[in-house]
């Protein structure tokens, strides 16, 4: 009964109710858009970092993670083919490949600069072709095992182009110096300018030759979706236990460098929290004003309801029900408006400027998740409910005789 009465009372003054709903809806819409934008940004940065460098999971010999700083090549996965086959067979696993990370010097005869090498098997990690933004030349292939690609900044500093020969200098596993003449197939760009100043992408054969080792430091694993990382990690640990294999698994968020993503995500989420509070206060004031006006306009009616036998908690319920109806309708309206706005904005695309430390422009979208939509809806609902508490209390505490005088 209170629901019916609340609904009808709300639609007595349709313009005011519509404006109030619009305010609640706008608050929810703003939350959906801001939340979706942040979600998309965080998702894009996280996914590109995972895709470009971290991988979803890394499998290494037991002891490697603990001792890799001082003994980076003492715990190699030798003959990884069999393990790759087993891991590849697990659900959600898309790519598994051997990796070697290597640091050394690169020289063009006139200038020598330090480099960091991501060495992988181009045949197994063909996906890297799609995820590498090639500025000039072509991607490395397994049929040319001693060709490399260099980062944009490094290519620029050394003034090297496709087909140029360079020398790589570095230590072997045993600490002796080694040098190698290689050919540059092209230049690429990642999202971080600093990385492009020193990064080389090469077939794993290049790193193995420089180090004079077989095998890989770790196997990198890419999944269909980042969300499946925990289940695949568990499956891997089960596999190692079952087959008595001496390997350990590292999830992307535990890999050095991932903390930057977490920090960035935390920063965005803090901004979003502040925004939510601002919207929350804005919507509370708007609804409180509407509910106060509703109480003031209906003092006579409240008196009648009380005279007819409605107890104070009944009046309280009535106005809270109005808040609930406003919240439900406003939340629903906000979610619908938010979805439409998100669709339109994503369709158009939000052109973003270059991020600090990056040379890449990007187009942001609004990524909607059930969490964002339910958050916006619940914000509208609870804001309306909270805003109606004070006016409802005020209404329930009216003196009956005094309230009835407003009817005359």
């Amino acid at each position, binding site marked *: 009964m209170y629901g019916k009465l609340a609904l009808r009372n709300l639609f007595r003054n349709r313009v005011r109710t519509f404006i109030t709903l619009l305010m609640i809806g706008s608050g929810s819409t703003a939350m959906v858009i801001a939340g979706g934008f942040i979600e998309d940004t965080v998702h894009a940065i996280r996914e590109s970092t995972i895709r470009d460098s971290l991988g979803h999971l890394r499998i290494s010999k037991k002891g490697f993670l603990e001792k890799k700083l001082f003994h980076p090549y003492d715990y190699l996965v030798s003959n990884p083919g069999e393990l790759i086959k087993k891991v590849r067979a697990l659900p959600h696993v898309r790519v598994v490949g051997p990796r070697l990370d290597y640091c050394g010097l690169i020289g063009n005869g006139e200038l020598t600069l330090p480099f960091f090498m991501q060495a992988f098997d181009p045949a197994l990690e063909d996906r890297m072709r799609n995820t590498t933004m090639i500025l000039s030349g072509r991607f490395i292939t397994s049929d040319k095992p001693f060709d490399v690609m260099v980062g944009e900044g490094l290519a620029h500093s050394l003034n090297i182009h496709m087909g140029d020969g360079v020398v790589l200098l570095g230590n072997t596993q045993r600490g002796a110096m080694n040098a190698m003449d290689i050919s540059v197939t092209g230049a690429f760009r990642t999202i971080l300018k600093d990385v492009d100043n020193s990064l080389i992408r090469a077939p794993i054969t290049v790193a193995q030759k420089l180090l004079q080792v077989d095998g890989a430091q770790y196997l990198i694993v890419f999944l269909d979706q980042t969300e499946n990382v925990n289940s695949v990690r568990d499956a891997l640990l089960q596999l190692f236990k079952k087959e008595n294999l001496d390997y350990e698994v590292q999830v992307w968020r535990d890999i050095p460098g991932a903390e930057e993503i977490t920090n960035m995500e935390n920063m965005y989420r803090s901004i979003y929290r502040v925004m939510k509070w601002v919207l929350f206060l804005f919507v509370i004031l708007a609804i409180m004003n509407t509910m106060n006006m509703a109480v003031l306009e209906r003092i006579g009616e409240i008196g009648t309801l009380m*005279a007819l*036998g409605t107890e104070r908690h009944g009046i309280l319920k009535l106005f809270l029900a109005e808040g609930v109806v406003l919240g439900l309708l406003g939340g629903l309206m906000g979610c619908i408006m938010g979805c439409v706005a998100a669709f339109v904005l994503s369709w158009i695309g939000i052109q973003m400027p270059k991020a600090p430390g990056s040379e890449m422009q990007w187009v942001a979208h609004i990524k909607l998740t059930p969490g964002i939509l339910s958050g916006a809806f619940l914000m509208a609902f609870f804001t309306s409910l909270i805003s109606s508490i004070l006016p409802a209390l005020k209404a329930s505490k009216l003196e*009956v005789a005094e309230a009835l005088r407003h*009817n005359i």
Partner: protein
Amino acid sequence: MIRFSHISKDYLLGETRVHAVMDVSFDIQRGEFAAIAGPSGSGKSTLLNLLGCIERPSSGAIFLDDVKISEFSPDESARFRLAKMGFIFQTFNLLPVFTAFENVEYPLHLRGMPSTERRRRVLAALDEVGMAAFIDRKPTQLSGGQRQRVAIARALVGEPVIILADEPTANLDQKTAEEIVSLLKRLHSEKGVTIIFSTHDAHIIKQAERLIRLESGRLITGEEASHVR
């Protein structure tokens, strides 16, 4: 049945204390059709409010069947009104968002009555006051007299012990006012319900079986006999 014992009611109007009712004592028996008469500001509405537990007296006590109703808490008063009282107001006080049917149904809803029983009673009450054909009309679609009939049905539907009517004809033309009073009288004689109403209309006063006259908050004694038929 109802006993007013040395009832006074004061209000604070700014810094001035206004004595709305002063030391009023009287009894009303079950089944009476009584009018509370007096000029504007004489304390008629206050007296009805005190009787309906809408206000509490500043001093004195009110008893209904030996139950002291003047010291009820606000929620006890609400429950008491719901169970025992029917109210008719000068300005009809129908809920504008409800139809005639829903307005009459409201007190039964509060009692938690099942819907089939509610429907039966509401239709019977509206039929009783001649409004059976208007059940789906909102108050704004009804005339003043029709609204008051719906209000009477609402007061009647809970089968109260007492119906209190505060100037029920004040906002009606003479003809409609007489129809409403006739309706109240008929309901009183057919159902035996106690009806107490306030008025300052001489025509209406004549219809009452008993008159309680107030002037400046005081009960005028000795007048009653001359008006009681």
